[in-house]
């Protein structure tokens, strides 16, 4: 198995798969990162990804261009994000419960919309997804879609935004010490609304990747827990975009590896292992990563603490 794994790590098609699997994770994790850096936990990501997948795909199915579909997914994500902001920032409801309720709401809404739009089909109708960028001269990237490029570009972009712009500083401060932000004349609520909406838009795009690039149709259960993985990856990434990329790629590595190992049938160290064990590995990896990082995690200090103006 070791030799096989080694061989895999040097094969180009393997890395193509890794990058493709990693893309929605990168986008989703960046989205969660923005929300949590501002101090708000957004557990609606799983539902928002489903909603983004469905709405983006529906838009393209009805004749819009692929990028317009992505925009629609982003808008839908932003809308759900605004709802979450209303519940958690203005109404100070429990961030956990609001997020979970949102996931259920967004998922069921998307599923409902799908069934209403296509009541009688047995196999999901398809669209023409993003094409690979074969014109690019770079080896692994030329087998990817533009959305992957977008995701990769967003990593340094968001890093720049957070560390080198006044708005990014305001966002970080609001997640660390809202009173300090208020004391420098900023509105904590406004900054949080903006962060949650933007982050949720990214989550919507993450979902759209699944239907517009990775696959070409909308299936129920297609998100399959990726949203939750993103929440774990943010902790692993210590809320930094660069490490988020690393985490997403590592997770995708595990995922792609277990796919290949399953297919090759040679088992772990020669012992035949049921395929489910392979499928478990990425999730186990996420939990282990969380535990390892937990002690040292420098949380945004105001994360999950509702901020009420005027209380000192």
């Amino acid at each position, binding site marked *: 198995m070791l030799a096989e794994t080694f061989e895999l790590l040097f094969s180009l098609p393997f890395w193509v798969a890794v990058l493709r699997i990693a893309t929605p994770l990168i986008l989703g994790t960046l989205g969660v990162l923005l929300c949590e850096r501002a101090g708000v936990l957004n*557990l609606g990501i799983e539902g928002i990804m489903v909603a983004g997948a469905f709405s983006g795909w529906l838009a393209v199915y009805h004749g819009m261009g692929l990028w317009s579909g992505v925009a629609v997914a982003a808008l839908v994500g932003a809308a759900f994000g605004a709802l979450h902001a209303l*519940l958690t920032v*203005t*109404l*100070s*409801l*429990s961030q*956990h*419960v*609001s997020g*979970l*309720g*949102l996931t*259920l*709401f967004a*998922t*069921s*809404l998307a*599923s*409902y*919309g799908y*069934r*209403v739009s296509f*009541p009688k089909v047995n196999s999901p109708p398809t669209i023409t997804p993003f094409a690979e960028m074969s014109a690019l001269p770079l080896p692994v990237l030329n087998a990817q879609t533009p959305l992957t490029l977008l995701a990769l570009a967003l990593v340094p972009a968001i890093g720049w935004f957070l560390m080198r712009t006044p708005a990014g500083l305001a966002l970080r401060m609001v997640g660390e010490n809202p009173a300090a932000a208020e004391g420098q004349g900023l509105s904590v609520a406004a900054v949080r609304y903006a962060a949650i909406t933007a982050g949720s838009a990214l989550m919507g795009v993450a979902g759209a990747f699944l239907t517009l690039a990775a696959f070409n149709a909308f299936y129920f259960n297609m998100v399959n*827990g990726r949203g*939750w*993985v993103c*929440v*774990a990856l943010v*902790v692993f990434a210590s809320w930094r975009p660069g490490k988020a990329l690393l985490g997403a790629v590592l997770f995708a590595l595990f995922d792609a590896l277990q796919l290949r190992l399953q297919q090759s049938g040679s088992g772990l160290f020669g012992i035949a292992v*049921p395929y*489910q*064990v392979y*499928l*478990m590995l990425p*999730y*186990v990896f*996420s*939990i282990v990563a*969380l*535990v390892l990082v*937990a*002690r040292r*995690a420098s949380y945004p200090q105001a994360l999950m603490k509702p901020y*009420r*103006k*005027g*209380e*000192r």
Partner: protein
Amino acid sequence: MRIEKRAVPSRRLQLAAPLLAIAFTLLVSSLLVAWAGAPVGKAYALLLEGGFGSTFAWSETLTRATPLILTGLSAAVAFRARLFNIGAEGQLYAGALAAVALGGLHGGAGFALHPALLLPAMMAAAAVAGALLLLGPALLKSRLGVDEVVTTLLLNFIVLLFVSMMLDGPMKDPTAMGWPQSVVLQDALQLDKLVARTRVHTGLIWALALAVALWALMKYGTLGFQIRAVGANARAAAFAGMPVGWVTVKVALLSGALAGLAGAIEVAGRTSYVTLDMSPGYGYSGIVIAMLAALNPLGVVAAAVFVAGILVGADSMSRAVNVPTYIADVIVSVSLLSMLVATMAAQYRIVFGRRAAHAG
């Protein structure tokens, strides 16, 4: 504009909250029904009839409600202590698996024990399985500060894969012609039907009994008192000398056990074997139910019946009119969110104007 906690929650709004929530929910869902092109009034009528309109409807609703009551109780006790157990789905499956392991293996005859002993042993095993599954994340939270929401969530996926593995392998039913389902529980271990020719089974009685027991525990038991105190104000609880860490562990064991029992009772009462799709999200629905019931165990029963009725009614409605069954989940999630907002209105008030103040 500011939100300020009322000293005494407004009684009127507290009572009106569920009604306001339901009204708003009906409004939103009627929009969805209209989108599907179905007549709104007729659709609602069919929904109500399908869920509550006949003895058969009620029997289906109560059957569906049985596991929901249990996962609802599981969430209620955990959330009351601010332990956010999102892993009830996995704990349910773990319990189901444990039950079948004890009662179904060895050619469907289980261990060579008298059913009167085996049944409680089976249930106990299910409870233990669920409890242990939650204990891990609970300890990670109290010792290492790892957020239990993510760990319990991820565990769900791992458990489901484990169940799949068991169903393909050691626990597979050899007579099931290749379908991944477990061995069947022996007849003697299956729960009796409450009403002939329906699916309602004695598991419902167990669920109701557990609801009452949990209610009694929370209201009259020292542990219940400690759970409520720790959840409401852990600092004051610690000052008063309560063992906060221990209480969290006990809550985890209790909550996990309840979810595990949900799985065992489903197997013993409804399906008699374990499949991968035996739970259409009962674990997650339990959380919604607990929130709708404001974490009150008796309220959980009412909320579970409500949600079950909606689910069953939506099934029946969608067969008659062209409204997809997913409307049930929409109704449930919108009820949850609007219930939260309405409850908030009872506990808080909106204050307009400049900062008025807290003594500095």
